[in-house]
């Protein structure tokens, strides 16, 4: 077995175990209704985590995505309020905007050789500020097409509703898996995360790859913003504060190495679902404070960081002992 895949298996095992525990206490947790809600409630987080996974695999970080989601909501709401454009046209404009925003950050990171942390931190303030400029208040979205999108679902057996935004998240993950694991671009991203100098020697076009990685993250943040607006039915500049950190947590719990170069897109999906499951458990229990979510997520994060450290050391020790055949 490839030692790199171990965190992924651990993540899956923890998720199944957690689900088992939930099920023994609340048998209703195994219904398609709960699963449907799990997908719906975490759709925007999952989509943004797809972009974050690719960024982290490349050895970077993107702190701007939470603000970009809020900006997207306000942008959609304000443009729909003040113009007669069709929502689909607004979506296209928004996605082009957030993709270009991500690409610009990637360009700066590469050209100025600046740490991604600083550049995307600036992007975070910029996007949040832009959202405030558009509107300080929460702006409701009123449009028949929007209501239609919101009401769109497929009734699963067992009366669970698979809503449109849940499907969008599943598609985003499918796209993410293909991009990260089935294309030359994905291999280049992993190569950059493994070591920039070596990657360049092997022929990776570093500038192009970096720009594309952050553009992809910007695209996913914009898509997440659309989904979030459909989910809440409004745009608000103070929404999704700190979502970038939740997304990073989901990526790490999903078994991706925070320093880059190793990880799986599918693991992030499980990471998002694990976090959603904890929340659902708290809702079912009814007596627990919702802050327990944060505590459990914190403990899980710590456990995974320790696991990864341990794995890295283990593989080094095995090498030192000459077990490499």
């Amino acid at each position: 077995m490839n030692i790199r895949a171990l965190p992924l298996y651990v993540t899956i095992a923890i998720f199944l175990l957690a689900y088992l525990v939930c099920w023994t206490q609340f048998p209703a947790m195994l219904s398609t209704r709960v699963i449907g809600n799990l997908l719906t409630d975490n759709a925007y987080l999952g989509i943004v985590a797809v972009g974050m996974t690719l960024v982290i695999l490349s050895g970077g970080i993107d702190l701007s995505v939470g603000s970009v989601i809020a900006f997207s909501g306000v942008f959609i709401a304000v443009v729909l309020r003040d113009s007669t454009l069709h929502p689909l046209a607004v979506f296209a404009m928004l996605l082009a905007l957030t993709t270009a925003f991500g690409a610009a950050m990637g360009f700066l990171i590469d050209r100025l050789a600046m740490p991604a942390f600083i550049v995307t931190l600036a992007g975070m303030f910029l996007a949040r500020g832009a959202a405030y400029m558009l509107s300080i208040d929460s702006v409701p979205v009123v449009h028949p097409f929007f209501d239609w999108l919101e009401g769109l679902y497929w009734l699963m057996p067992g009366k669970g509703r698979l809503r449109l935004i849940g499907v969008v998240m599943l598609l985003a993950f499918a796209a993410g898996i293909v991009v990260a694991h089935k294309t030359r671009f994905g291999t280049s991203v992993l190569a950059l995360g493994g070591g920039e100098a070596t990657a360049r020697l092997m022929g990776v076009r570093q500038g192009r790859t970096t720009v594309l990685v952050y553009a992809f993250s910007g695209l996913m943040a914009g898509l997440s913003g659309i989904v979030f607006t459909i989910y809440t039915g409004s745009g608000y500049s103070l929404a999704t504060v700190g979502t970038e950190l939740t997304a990073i947590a989901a990526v790490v719990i999903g078994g991706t190495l925070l320093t880059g170069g190793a990880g799986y897109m599918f693991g992030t999906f499980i990471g998002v679902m694990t976090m959603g499951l904890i929340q659902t458990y708290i809702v079912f229990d009814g007596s627990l404070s919702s802050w327990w979510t944060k505590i459990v997520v914190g403990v899980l994060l710590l456990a995974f960081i320790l696991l990864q450290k341990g794995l890295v050391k283990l593989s080094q020790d095995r090498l030192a002992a000459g077990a490499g055949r």
Partner: protein
Amino acid sequence: MLLTIRSLTKTFPGTKALDAVDFDLAAGEVHALLGENGAGKSTLIKCLTGAYRRDGGAITLEGAGIDPQSTVEAQELGIGTVYQEVNLLPNLTVAQNLMFGREPRRWGLIRNRAMRAQARAMLRDYGLSLDVDRDLGSYSVAIQQIVAIARAVALSGKVLILDEPTASLDAAEVRMVFDVVRGLRARGLGIVFVSHFLDQVFDLSDRVTVLRNGRRVATERTRDLDRVALIEHMLGRELEAATQEPAARRGPRPPMLRFAGMGRRGAVQPFDMQVGQGEVLGLAGLLGSGRTETAELLFGLKPAQTGRARDQGGALDLSTPRAAIAAGFGLAPEDRKTDGIVADLTIRENIVLGLQARRGWARPIARAEQNRLAEDYIRRLDIRTTGREKRVGELSGGNQQKVVLARWLAMNPRFLILDEPTRGIDVGAHAEILRLIHDLTAQGMALLVISSEIDELIAVSDRVIVLRDRRHVAELAGEDIAPARIMQAIAATGPAPAAAAQGAA
């Protein structure tokens, strides 16, 4: 000839790294490229692989002139390179590494099964059957090196440059890599082999070219080559006329330090060593023979895994530099720019740095005392400066080295290690440093001097220890300290006892 280089020239500000160098390579030949630090080997290779642009000269490959602008272009022309490290990505699988950039695809998506099959087929030529789905990093360095060779050959296929590929391999692994290289030679590739290990050069290569100071000194068939002659080519004997009077060899000295069985895996084989009071010990050997490693071991930078150190009073702790300093040791490192001086601090601040660190930050040295120390050492070591408050980065190399020395002298160590004390220093300062070494020993301080310049060692040493392939192979004293004897010791073949200590001291 497969590859021909004629009067290749490359100049950097201040130095001529390559001066009209000729080099050629036949198909089916292993051509070794030798030279000490700064000889121009890596510049030559970088000009070949497109990492540098040459200033003059011509490179022809299979009769056609080439001028590669990047490593990728050099690869496409047929020149592949395998470096000592940083070749491939340990976090990708073996198959991904081998096929990177050439993955078989359908509709833009990588066909994993075809990729694995192709990777396995590539490795079969090298007699390797690996699980190509495992991360490369989970295999040993030798296997990684062979995978890197396989990739380089697949991408280029005419000329293969091996830049110290065996530096971190053990003997069995070296044999494994060499078998692969011989296989490639039989297939008609031209192979340029850079190594510091003479045994390996004699073992593997058909011809040898020696560079020194950017010039080609010799090109000869390996089997006609005599080891001593080769080492003379590498180290040079131009200074012969200017050789200083040998140190007035003094008789046995009262013993001070005794090291027994000190060693560290991958750095230097266990050795015994004794140091007398006021004695100067020279360490001779080629680059990569374990000289610097010996210094780092004694100073606790890369602490010994075996062996003991003791003085008259009992056992010494040398596990960290801090412990070594407490034991009265000092080390002036080879690369003073990165490891020695703090360029942005003044001369005064640099000199009191070590002393202050030992006293602890809670007990600052009074400014008047600092000034006195600085003035004192500027005068005693003749540091050329406009004042004690000048930034050290603005001083010349020789004066920087004196500041590093002053820092150690202020702490009054009993055993000071000087790694290449005269590297990059002009002739005048050179003589002053040697004079200083004499003065220090007169006060009872013992010194360990590492130098690539044999004449320098002869000028200052009471005894000379010779290293080869990370082993202490000989110890010379008295009349034996002569250029010919030292070179013979460096050149001698076969494994030698860990240390031919003669109980001097």
